[in-house]
């Protein structure tokens, strides 16, 4: 595996078998590195299992409960609302009241189906339950803490008549596109610096979302703190990817195609480990669920979506500034542009690649948390996003740093706005068709250079 820009798929006959400057090891050090490879491989593949398996262990001591948060945009968290829980055949199980943060949790005797009722009399004025009424029927799994979502309305919703669908979809698309861009920056930079088409990048997104889910729902940590922890863990998983798998593979001289197949194997294994541990259901986070869309004239947006846009924008500007101004950012672009030249001008290529992986993992995890916030958490959410990330990265120009940003946003907006003409459940199809169209018209992407496409 080596860097892509100047190399087509095949072996470059002029390249000598000695390791390039960036990965120069001590001569004779190779065999011990080779022996360690297997151990590292095992470590890296079981890491995902370890995180995910340990976290629910915290929760299992608590026992089954139903829980949720009552809050609206206008009132904020609502305290003092009575929640009663009955079994499905009408036997009372328990009662709870929301605290200052609007949260309630009612322990239930065991797994099974329960009816959760909200006492509408204890709600503040103007706040009403949504069209689904004041009861919810939930199924609690063994050791599960089942989130219950009463869609509360604060009466601000009726004024949405002057919304314009296209503008609404554009804003939704912008949010989604920024999220794709955040997740895809790492994918593009990893490709640029190492030549690896990392099919396991989507799993970094899922890991971010799932870690935040377990921390928020089971360990009861506020989502903001959980998100920060998830991002840190995402960075660590990225580093583990590089140190435990890809760097040893580069040292072994594994080909690009072989590396691609390895990344697919990794993606498959991690994805199904996640499904085994997390299960096939989709769940929301505990916090920020019962928000109502706020009216902004031509469009409406929930606060969580607004903050998702703001966070994405801030992070992307920070990433762009870092790439443009900082030493390491310049080094990243230099390595992505021409690795051998960068190495011979004294850049420690392996260090740069490690930083790229940490950054890519952390950003992907952040993307996962934001995606989980808007679309709920699923075991294969990252894999589905991966295809749109590929579309975005290809559109922007594979391997370029800014290409992922531009391409991701365009793909997001395109996917959302395509629902103007096609059905909602086919919107991903539109995004993938866009990808194919780009390859016909301009395969190097908007910002890419012709030399890269082989």
């Amino acid at each position, binding site marked *: 595996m080596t860097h892509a820009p100047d190399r087509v798929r095949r*072996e470059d006959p002029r390249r000598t078998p000695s390791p390039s400057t960036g990965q120069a090891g001590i001569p004779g050090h190779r065999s011990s590195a080779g022996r360690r490879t297997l151990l590292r491989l095992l470590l890296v593949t079981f890491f995902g299992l370890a995180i995910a398996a340990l976290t629910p262990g915290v929760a299992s001591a608590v026992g089954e409960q139903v829980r949720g948060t009552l809050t609206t945009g206008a009132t904020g968290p609502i305290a003092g609302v009575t929640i009663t829980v009955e079994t499905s055949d009408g036997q009372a199980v328990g009662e709870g009241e929301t605290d200052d943060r609007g949260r309630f949790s009612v322990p239930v005797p065991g797994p099974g189906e329960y009816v959760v009722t909200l006492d509408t009399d204890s709600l503040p004025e103007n706040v009403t339950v949504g069209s689904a009424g004041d009861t919810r029927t939930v199924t609690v799994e063994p050791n599960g803490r089942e989130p219950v979502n009463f869609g509360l309305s604060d009466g601000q919703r009726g004024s949405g008549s002057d919304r314009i669908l296209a503008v609404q979809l554009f804003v939704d698309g912008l949010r989604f596109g920024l999220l794709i861009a955040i997740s895809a920056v790492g994918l593009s930079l990893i490709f640029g610096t190492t030549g690896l088409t990392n099919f396991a990048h989507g799993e970094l997104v899922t890991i971010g979302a799932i870690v935040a889910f377990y921390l928020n729902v089971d360990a009861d940590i506020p989502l903001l703190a959980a998100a920060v922890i998830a991002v840190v863990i995402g960075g660590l998983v990225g580093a583990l990817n590089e140190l435990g798998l890809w760097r040893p593979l580069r040292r072994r*001289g*594994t080909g690009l195609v072989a590396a691609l197949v390895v990344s697919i194997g990794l993606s*498959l294994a991690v994805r199904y480990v996640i499904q085994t541990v997390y299960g096939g259901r989709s769940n929301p986070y505990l916090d920020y669920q019962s928000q109502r869309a706020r009216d902004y004239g031509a469009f409406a947006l929930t606060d969580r979506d607004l903050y998702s846009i703001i966070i994405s924008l801030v992070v992307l500007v920070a990433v762009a500034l870092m790439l443009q101004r900082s030493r390491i950012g310049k080094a990243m672009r230099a390595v992505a542009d021409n690795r051998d030249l960068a190495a011979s001008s004294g850049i420690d290529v392996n260090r740069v690649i490690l930083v790229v992986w940490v950054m890519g993992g952390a950003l992907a995890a952040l993307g996962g948390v934001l995606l989980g916030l808007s679309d709920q958490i699923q075991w294969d959410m990252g894999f589905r996003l991966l*295809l749109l990330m590929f579309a975005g990265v290809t559109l922007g120009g594979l391997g370029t740093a800014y290409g992922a940003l531009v391409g991701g946003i365009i793909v997001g907006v395109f996917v959302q706005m395509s629902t103007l003409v096609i059905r909602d459940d086919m919107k991903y199809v539109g995004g993938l068709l866009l990808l194919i169209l780009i390859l016909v018209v301009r395969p190097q992407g908007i910002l890419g250079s012709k030399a890269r496409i082989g």
Partner: protein
Amino acid sequence: MGELLDAFQLGVRAMFAYQAVFFALLAIGLNLHFGYTGLLNFGQIAFAMVGGYGIAISVAQWDLPFWVGVVVGLGAAVILALLLGLPTLRLRADYLAIVTIATAEALRLLFRSVGSTEVTGSTEGLFDFNSSFFTWCPWSVSGRFDILGTRWRGSELWVITIGWSIVLLSCLLVWALMRSPWGRVLRAVREDEDAARALGKNVYAFKMQSLVLGGIFGALGGMVYAVGTGSQNPDQYQNANTFLAYGALILGGAARVLGPVIGAMLLWFIIAFSDSALAALVSGDNSFFGLFEWGDLLSTTDIAYIRFIIIGLGLMLLMIFRPQGILGDRREVMLDAR
């Protein structure tokens, strides 16, 4: 011990069942793409899907005869291959990879969309399209047959008879093609595209022919699968199946005529054996050296996912430590190696 023997027997049976035929045909197609031509087709399952749905839609929805369905399925596979190849085959290998995996997912979403219910039946699926196939069966379809201690229904036996015949013919075809000048050009393209081009070969056309032919094998696999299950649902064609087929191909040995067949049979032995062995482990009172109960760690529904974890890890380890698999030649499969 008896449970292990049962698991072993189920494993041996699975080596010959129609699922193994399905994956053998998928892998034969991939062998042509990946093993002989060096094309990274990660959407092989899409070819199987258009093949299977070609029969299902033609027969169940349009009331056409069975053989027309087969023609429709094969035609759809050819068109799909052309559509995939046109934009990507001039570009570097990973572009084809991205486009094929994206197309496979997009097609599945399209077929399961509510909007396509009238044609594909969306998530409800399609049924009752294989009855005329079974009217050609020379023995009793509903009869039971015991062969070497394994039990088969007459219908199953008929599907796998036809299925393995197709596999045999496909292998013969691949064997003959790879001895021909055409096959040698394919391998030349795999080893060095520029050299092949310098010799005056139209590399693009050869790649395209390989993509189409391999896609047809995939579609045949999908048809065997569709007839074998008797129902069609878009979610049967999950992306992960392409990688199971890759696992089979690399396990058996890429760029070998019999590699994908042996790989697919072994793969299904491993899957069926591990499924039933794990099921026995989970359902009984078995603990891991007294540390924890297996039944607490895994539920019975988890077992279906374990196969993908095993295949994923196996694919990684094989690709790193033994890319040539069982039969292959290391020099032939070290694509893009230094």
